């Protein structure tokens, strides 16, 4: 039985993991960098340890410091969250060597699936369809040309150790091959210290569809159905949903079986995700495996009713999975929108800063997994994700309508956010009809980057914006003590009086 868990992470995912632990009666240990003393995960956990200066390579990425905190706090287990050390084989190994339970897969699984070439090989051997391409490192142009001849243009040259779009080159014509190979190799070397590359056939009009899997220590592997993650910007997921509006029950069944085979081939343990590329004709290919909890795990939780973090912990305790595959039935529809501190109108420039107000949407079918609060300053050192807004509906239509309502109810003051951009996505006909692929944002950009207000209404809002600024300015001129200019009826006097009391704070 795990009694105390150290969460080696920060932000919304640390808060989300602590919630699950609290519900299980497990004591929680937060770790934090100097920038994060006031962060919510520190406030919310039962215990908290400082692990270094603000930059993550001096704190959240320092294995020794995290192990130190785990020993000081006597933690039985470490949950890595996502990002940071979550897919670090050395960390997984080290934690186990220190006699602490690692809530995640073995170093073997992480390594096998972390290297793209070995992952492709492993999947091919397990019979899982992969994107046509090579299984070996391509050292020179000669072998590249040979491989391209087999696969056919267009192709993607990809770094074996890759991720985040680095060391990746799309080749449409044969005479681009030499330059592309050189560029990909040099970028891969610079980014990952390894210039191994391979090629894959370039799949046009793709959909990113991933399968959640759960595997226990006793060889039981379940798939928890799919998540559709095709609304992307610069290869970053923006909106996810389940069920996918694209696939059929038959395809779901097939892909799910391959996902289980993939997890078994990787000797996987815990919660993981098998990502597939799917084309418009529903051909699907293994893309990669994420050997950790995903950002978008809540959509799966809402349609299945299964708390994935609790399942991770139970599996790490050695428990058997308590369901059979036939008991996994999707109920309703869930959508997740990622809310970032960014300026959508200014090329999505990150917008960290001081949160002056944070009013989260509430009500039936609305879940908001965030971590900022009024008075919190979003640090410049980490990811600009503020929260994930997730809605559930009995139908996809209801989930979308609820998401639109929730996005409108959400108010984050003091920083720029992607809330309006997300609302426009929900209003886009292609999205509403479920007809979209990874080209969605590019295709709909004219629609997405307008405010969406009807003309007279836009004029009125401008009027009211000016009036609000004018009154605020006047209030500030005429009295500094927070009693607004407009406070003249008795309720307002009362408000002023009590505000006065509050001001003593």
């Amino acid at each position, binding site marked *: 039985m795990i009694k105390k868990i150290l969460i080696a992470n920060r932000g919304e995912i640390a808060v989300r993991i602590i919630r699950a632990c609290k519900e299980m009666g497990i004591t929680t240990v937060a770790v934090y960098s100097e920038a994060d003393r006031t962060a919510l995960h520190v406030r919310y956990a039962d215990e908290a340890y400082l692990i270094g200066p603000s930059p993550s390579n001096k704190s959240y990425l320092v294995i020794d410091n995290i192990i130190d905190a785990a020993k000081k706090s006597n933690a039985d287990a470490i949950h890595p969250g996502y990002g940071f050390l979550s897919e670090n084989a050395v960390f997984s190994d080290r934690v186990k060597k220190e006699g602490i339970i690692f809530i995640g897969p073995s170093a073997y699984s992480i390594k096998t699936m972390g290297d793209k070439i070995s992952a492709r090989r492993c999947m091919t051997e397990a019979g899982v369809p992969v994107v046509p391409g090579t299984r070996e490192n391509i050292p020179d142009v000669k072998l590249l040309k040979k491989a391209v001849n087999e696969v056919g243009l267009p192709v993607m040259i990809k770094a074996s150790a890759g991720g985040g779009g680095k060391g990746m080159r799309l080749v449409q014509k044969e005479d681009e091959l030499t330059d592309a190979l050189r560029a990909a190799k040099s970028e891969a070397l610079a980014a990952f210290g390894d210039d191994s590359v391979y090629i894959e056939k370039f799949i046009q009009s793709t959909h990113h569809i991933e399968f959640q899997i759960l595997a226990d220590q006793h060889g039981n592997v379940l798939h928890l159905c799919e998540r559709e993650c095709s609304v992307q910007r610069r290869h970053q997921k923006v909106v996810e949903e389940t069920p996918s509006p694209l696939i059929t029950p038959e395809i779901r069944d097939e892909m799910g079986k391959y996902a289980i085979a993939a997890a078994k081939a990787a000797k996987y343990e815990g919660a993981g995700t098998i990502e597939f590329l799917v084309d418009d004709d529903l051909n699907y290919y293994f893309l990669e495996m994420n050997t950790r909890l995903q950002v978008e795990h809540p959509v799966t939780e809402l349609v299945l009713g299964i708390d994935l973090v609790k399942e991770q912990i139970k599996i790490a305790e050695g428990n058997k999975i308590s369901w059979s595959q036939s008991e996994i039935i999707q109920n309703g529809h869930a959508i997740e929108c990622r809310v970032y*501190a960014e*300026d959508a109108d*200014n*090329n999505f*420039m*990150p*917008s*960290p*800063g001081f949160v*002056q*107000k944070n009013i989260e949407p509430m009500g039936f079918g609305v879940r908001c997994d965030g971590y900022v609060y009024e008075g919190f300053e979003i640090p*410049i*050192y*980490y*990811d*600009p994700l503020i929260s994930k807004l997730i809605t559930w509906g009995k139908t996809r239509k209801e989930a979308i309508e609820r998401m639109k309502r929730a*996005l*409108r109810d*959400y*108010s984050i*003051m*003091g920083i*720029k*956010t992607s*809330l*309006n951009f997300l*609302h426009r996505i929900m209003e886009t006909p292609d999205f509403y009809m479920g007809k979209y692929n990874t080209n969605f944002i590019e295709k709909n950009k004219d629609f997405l980057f307008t*405010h969406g*207000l009807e003309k007279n209404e836009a004029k*009125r*809002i*401008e*009027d*009211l*914006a*000016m*009036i*609000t*600024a*004018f*009154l*605020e*300015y006047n*209030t*500030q001129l005429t009295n500094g003590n*927070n009693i*607004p200019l*407009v*406070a*003249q*009826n008795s309720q*307002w006097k009362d408000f002023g009086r009590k505000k006065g009391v509050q001001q003593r704070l």
Partner: protein
Amino acid sequence: MEISINNQNSNIEVIKQEGNKFQISLNGRTLDLDITKVEKGIYSILIDGKSYEMEVVPGRNKKNYIIGYHGLSYDIEIIDSEAKYLKNKQNTNTEDDDDQNSISSPMPGKVIKIPIEVGEKVKPGQTLIIISAMKMESEYKAKRAGVVKEIFAKEGETIEGNQSLILID
């Protein structure tokens, strides 16, 4: 009083006020409103029976506000006599090309690379500085040709938002 939104000026004036009830003249139109500040930074406005919530946070300076409405934001400038004077003065002095000469980042971050030196000639579109903030790198480019006059930042340094980083002459 004058007020500016998207560089368009409007005239605004309170004609009458009783409690929460306002009669306001906006560019000659008369509006009847019921306005209450319901919480810090949030105004509830009733007009023609309709209910609106407007959010307000302080902007760049004491006469600038960012007004929010359901995820949209409006940048509003108050133009009183002092502001007018300053604006005129600024216009005469700098001919409003301040922003073309000075490079700054709207957000705090870390300087990744400064691929230019003081005295170097730069072309429009040439990268002057690369800033990293929150796992994302942004390149800032020259808006016009010129010579690098001064560099106020160093590679590896942490910078504040809206701080002048490079001056082009």
